[in-house]
């Protein structure tokens, strides 16, 4: 379990700007995150991680997206590990209303890279609190 005082950075990746904005608002209301970054284009999320040079603490990742889907994002993300210096793996949460057997099987491949959870849309505060309690020790509640 990661020991962390507060969640420094979370990435929200969904092709819907409306969903990203809604989830950003929800997370801001919780007051547990320093930086919340939204990407409707996963390619830009990859570029952002590259340019910032450090990984987020959590990634909320939609699967079905045009141009680059969630698994394609993960394939590129894995390649970043050799570029970005880090001594921990971000928690990657697949956010989708229905994972399905095929996608569930596929997601198991990425488990060692941090894909440890799946939550259903819409994300709610209880989901987030459960994730934090499960995977982050010592985060500060407001």
């Amino acid at each position: 379990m990661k020991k962390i005082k507060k969640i420094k950075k979370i990435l929200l990746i969904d092709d819907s700007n409306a969903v990203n904005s809604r989830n950003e608002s929800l997370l801001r209301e919780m007051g547990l995150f320093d930086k919340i970054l939204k990407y409707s284009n996963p390619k830009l999320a990859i570029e952002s991680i590259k340019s910032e040079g450090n990984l987020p603490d959590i990634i909320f990742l939609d699967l079905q997206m045009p141009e680059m889907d969630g698994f394609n994002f993960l394939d590129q993300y894995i390649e970043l590990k050799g570029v970005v210096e880090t001594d921990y793996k971000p928690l990657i949460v697949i956010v989708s209303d229905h994972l399905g057997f095929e996608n569930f099987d596929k997601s198991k491949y990425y488990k060692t890279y941090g894909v440890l959870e799946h939550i259903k849309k819409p994300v709610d505060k209880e989901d987030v609190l459960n994730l934090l309690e499960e995977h982050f020790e010592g985060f500060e509640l407001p």
Partner: protein
Amino acid sequence: MTLTPPILEPTKLSYESFVQLLPFFFIEVKEDFILLEKSFETKDIDTIRLLTHKMKGSSASYGATNVSEKARLLQSMIDSGKTHSMKEEIIALGKTIEEAYHYSRERFGIS
């Protein structure tokens, strides 16, 4: 009008944030619907699939359950290959979006 109203619960957004964001949801879902209609004309099933999935998720996130359900129906129609009545379902989805929009204007005072 027999709509299921958007549901706000304590584990979800505050009322203020919800009302502030709602117009952006409708801008997006209406734009997506226009793209959906165009994709239907060009028989671009893959784009229709992506758009219905997107609209299903975004409308669920804003509690527009009627819209989400219509989008889900359309998506399952595509997934099962039963596309003969897709046009009617697309029209129904468009009507449901408009109903949800007008309801929201009255209920939440959005423009």
